[in-house]
Structures are given as C-alpha cells and as structure tokens.
C-alpha cells in the first residue's frame, strides 16, 4: 500500500475578486521511503497541495473534492484532533523561509523539545538527548541547543528547522523550498544532509521547488505542476530524458547550466495564467506551441502512458499525437 495516495484533490481560494482555482484534480502517490519532487513556478499550486495534505490551509480555502489517503486513512474526513496527532508525527513539514518560523524569544533547543513533547510521552531529559542526536544528524554543534535564533546564521537556522521537522521521526516530510534563501555552498551541504537523513531513517519526502536542478538531484520521482494541475509525473530519468509534456520540455530548456554545451535558452512566451479565470481546457494551451482546438475545449485526462509515467496532454511529445 502506498504511504500517501492523493486522488483528484481539488481546492479553491475564495477571495474578494472571485474564486482562485488553485489546485485542480491532482493525483499522485508516494511510497514509503521514496523521495518525490514537485516542481513548478510560483502560483502553480505546489504549496497549496502541501498545506492541503496537512489541512493547514487558510480560512478562505475551500476543499472541493478528492481524497488524501495516508496509510489508508482519508485525511480529509478525519476530525481535527486526529489530524493534529498526525501533524508532526506522521507527516511533518518544513515551510518556505522556515528560518523565520523560529520564535526569537525562546532557545532553539527548547522549541524542538516542545515539538517532541507534544507528540511523544517523553520526559525532558530524554527529549534533550533526542535533540542532541538530531543536531548531530543535521550537522549542528550540540552546544547550540541553548542559544537563541538570532545567534544562528541562515544555514544554521534552516538546519534547526529541519531537525524540528525530524524530531518525531515522521514517515513523510514535506519540504517547501527549504534552500531557496541560502547560498549555493550551504544549500549543497543541507541537501546532502537531508538526503542522508532520509536514507538512514527510511523516510519518504516530498520536495517542493521551482529549481529543476535541485529537484533533479534530490528526487527519485518528479511531478511537474502548471497552473494548479499536475501535468506530468514520472521517475527522474524519464522526466529528463523523455519528457512528454510540452511544459516539461519548455521548463528544462529555460534553465541555463554550467555543464555541457552552452546552448540558447528557449524562452516561453507569455506568463503563468491568472487562476481567477484559468484558461479553458488544458491550462497550458495559451503558451503551448502544439495547441489545437481540442486543447482549448477539453481538459486532458491524467493517464498512465507507460508504466510509472503519467501525463495530462492531448499531444504528448516524442510519441506522435
């Protein structure tokens, strides 16, 4: 059984200016110990999905359908008290700009201890020991437990937040752009740490980012999101070597690289759409070089075009229409 199985999750935000169609019939699955990457631009819905999984959406969010099965239990239907038990323990999250989520008036170690004691019936001494262990795991000196957040650097704060997310040994960690604000050398260290920890504890991970290079390095499977829809999902190698969705191909050619031949970047015309009034049919059609009438009129089905490779497109590339 998959650790997490999301089936046609749909969600809107209600705003003064109308309904924002943030997430549209998204389906995917994460196996135990698997690392899946969710890549897409700002506003594509990747953060909304993460918040939806943990039921941490703001008040103006409306859940419109679908199910989220965590170890077989539908998280969309259980009461809040049960959900609270799962947050942090079953599924944990590292938020975007998480370094700002440390409370500046408490010692960092104490904040992690609090996180542990909320879920596990452990005494303070044992909790402290655990935190020391976690610090070692993420590469922080144990003495830093008794320091305050302002005494940490950006990279150190990020590691502390990761330690907090790991504190109760969750089965699944959702990391939302955990290294975006960091310099590249610190980012490298943290990514290696996270990967090492994940393998050691056999944790599943959902890694969310707009940076396709980072996603390529940390994920075993990749889901590509555009304008609230999951347009393609496959293992990393397939996504890079045999991408089928025009957006996936476009995304890849939009990133310059330091390796390989220096080639001309393919600029995608237009901008990501306004989700108050999303395009009809396939949401990518205004920017797609292969769009036809069908693309404008009908939403493409999300299908498994080959084992493990899912796609929502009327004209898959490299396969003929």
């Amino acid at each position, binding site marked *: 059984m998959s650790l997490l199985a999301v089936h046609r999750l749909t969600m809107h935000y209600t705003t003064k200016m109308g309904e924002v169609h943030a997430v549209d019939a998204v389906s995917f699955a994460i196996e135990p110990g698997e690392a899946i990457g969710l890549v897409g*631009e700002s506003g594509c819905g990747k953060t909304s999905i993460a918040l939806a999984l943990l039921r941490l959406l703001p008040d103006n969010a409306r859940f419109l359908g679908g199910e989220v099965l965590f170890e077989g239990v539908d998280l969309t239907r259980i009461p809040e008290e049960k959900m609270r038990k799962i947050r942090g323990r079953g599924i944990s999250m590292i938020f975007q700009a998480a370094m700002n989520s440390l409370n500046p008036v408490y010692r960092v170690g104490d904040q992690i201890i609090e996180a542990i004691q909320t879920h596990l019936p452990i005494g303070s001494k044992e909790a402290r020991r655990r935190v020391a262990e976690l610090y070692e795991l993420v590469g922080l000196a144990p003495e830093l437990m008794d320091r305050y957040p302002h005494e940490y650097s950006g990279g150190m704060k990020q590691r502390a937040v990761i330690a907090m997310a790991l504190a109760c040994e969750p089965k699944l960690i959702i990391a939302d752009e955990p290294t975006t604000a960091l*310099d590249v*050398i610190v*980012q490298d260290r943290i990514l290696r740490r996270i990967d090492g920890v994940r393998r050691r504890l056999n944790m599943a991970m959902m890694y969310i980012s707009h940076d396709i*290079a980072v996603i390529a390095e940390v994920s075993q499977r990749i889901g590509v999101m555009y304008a609230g829809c999951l347009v393609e999902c496959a293992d990393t190698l397939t996504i890079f070597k045999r991408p089928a969705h025009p957006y996936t191909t476009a995304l*890849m050619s*939009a990133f310059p690289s*330091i390796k390989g031949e*220096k080639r001309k970047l393919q*600029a995608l015309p237009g901008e990501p759409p306004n989700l108050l009034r999303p395009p009809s049919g396939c949401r990518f059609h205004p920017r797609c070089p292969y769009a036809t009438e069908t693309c404008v009129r009908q939403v493409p089905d999300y299908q498994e075009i080959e084992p493990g490779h899912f796609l929502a497109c009327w004209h898959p590339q490299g396969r003929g229409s």
Partner: protein
Amino acid sequence: MPALLDLLNVTKLFLLKRQAFSLRGHRFVHAVDGVSFSLEPREIFGLVGESGCGKTTTGKLIVKLYEPTSGRIFLDGQDITQIRRGPALRQFRRSVQMIFQDPYESLNPRFTVFDAVAEPLLIHGVRALSEREARVAEILAQVGLTPPETFLFRFPHELSGGQRQRVAIARAMVIHPKCVVADEPTSMLDVSVRAGVMDLLLGLRQELGVSYLYITHDLAVARYMSDRLAVMYLGKIVELGPTEEVIQSPQHPYTQALLAAVPVPDPTYQRPSPAIKGDVVAPVNPPLQCRFLSRCPRAEEVCRDSPHPPLADLGSGHLVACYLARR
C-alpha cells in the same frame, strides 16, 4: 582601444557601530577591498559570488550610489570619483545606469509606465512632451512591451513580474547609456520568464551597443550571459577571466568549490562534494593573510605566512589570486 570602465584598487569600508567607550577601536566591514578590473565597450562582464561577497556594493560604487573609501574608477578615461555635482555628474548619469533586482520595488507604485520610463528623459532636459512620448514608445517596443500604447498608462501593480522588469530595463535604456549595471535582474522572476528577459538583455547589447556589469549569485546564469567572469569572495576578486575558461577550468579553490556546489539538472551526473570547510564569515577587520585561508582545504605554509595573494595572470587574461594555482 581604452576600456569603457576601469576600476583601480577600489575599496569601500563601512563603519560598524562600535560600543561607546570601547577601547577596541573602530571595526570596519571591508565590503569591497582592493578590487580592480575593466569593462570593455559592448562587453558583458559577470560578477559572481555568494551573499556578502561585495558584488552588489561594487555595482553601487560604479553607479555612484556609494563613493569609494579609496581607489579610482575611470569612465572613458575620466576619473569619476572626483565628480561630485553639477554638469559633470549629470553627464555621468547619462552614461551609466542600473537595473535592480526587485521588479516591483524598483518602480514607484504611483507612477504610470510612461512616468517611470520618461523620468530620466525629463531629468536630462527633454522638455518636449511629444519627444518624450515618442522615445518612451520606441524603447517600450524594443523591450518587447508591444503595442506600447497599451502599456503607457498602466501602473506597476497591473503588470506581471516579467513586464515590470522590462519596464525597469526600458527606463535604464531610454537615455542610451554606455554601461548598465544589472543587479540580479532575473532572480525574482518566474523561471519560465527569466530566459525571455535574459535574451532581451543580450539583444539590447547588440542593438544599442551597451555594456553590462552583470551581477548574479547563479553561476549558470553568469555562464549564459557573460563574456568574462570575476568571482568575488569577502570583498576581493579571487579569479577573473574569459567565462568558459573560468567555468571549465577554475584555478582558485573557492571557484572550484562554488562550481562543485551548483546543482546540475542532469540526473545521470554524479556531482562531487565541494572541497571547502567551515562557514562564511563576515568581512569585518579581516586578517592580512589570504581571505580564503580558514576555509581552504589545500592551504599550505606559504598561505599562512604571506599576505593575501595578488591577482596573477596565468596567461590569456585568466587571473587568479592564489599562491598554489600559480605554480
């Protein structure tokens, strides 16, 4: 042919507020420390480094938002550090412009696109309204905001990030400067939009004959955009040379570590671990030895006993500030 822009041993120190009655004396942040390089006409010169390395400060020194603590900056052979006010300053401002990182915050929210792009024209004496309108429309078309009439009277909040940045580029280019400092112009844009803006900048270099100092932390972007590249660390340039050469055969340990740390969008490529230890330090009252000493995995006796290594030419314009690389 003389260089368009010449920096000679430019240093910028910022005073750290010291504690009152402290006997320890003044502490300075060496944001830019003895930096020298030149920018040729029609060249794109990339300046890369991590946060705090001094690249943005260098950019601001060139556009005279800051004045150097010491050193000289020459524009077309003229020492601009001596210019303080008056027509000489005005003439300078016509020649050197800047594009900022944040596309929203660099446009006044109360100005229409026309107001924003026409402002430099107004400041530099283009009184005739019709001429201003014509030139603004022309430059808007050149930056890809067509048809220009539909954009003239929009406000920044009605535009997307990519469009706003194009407006900022138009504003910088409208008075046909010789040199433009671009400070991370695409880092706050959506990924699918970045390529368009980068290609626009490359295109404008051809059309308008302008040079860029392209500041970025992203080495892949620097590789794509620049002809020559300089790597900065703690206020100093540690390596400088033709971009492909610096990227493909880096000589300075820091450059090597930096390149090794960049994620590569190729799942078949096994990236080695960057050879570097320790964490970034602030460039406050730095020691006299090589700035990279505390983090260098290959430091030797000579590094500990000598002052910070000067930039040495390895041939073909590839300079490195490292005693070990010179051997």
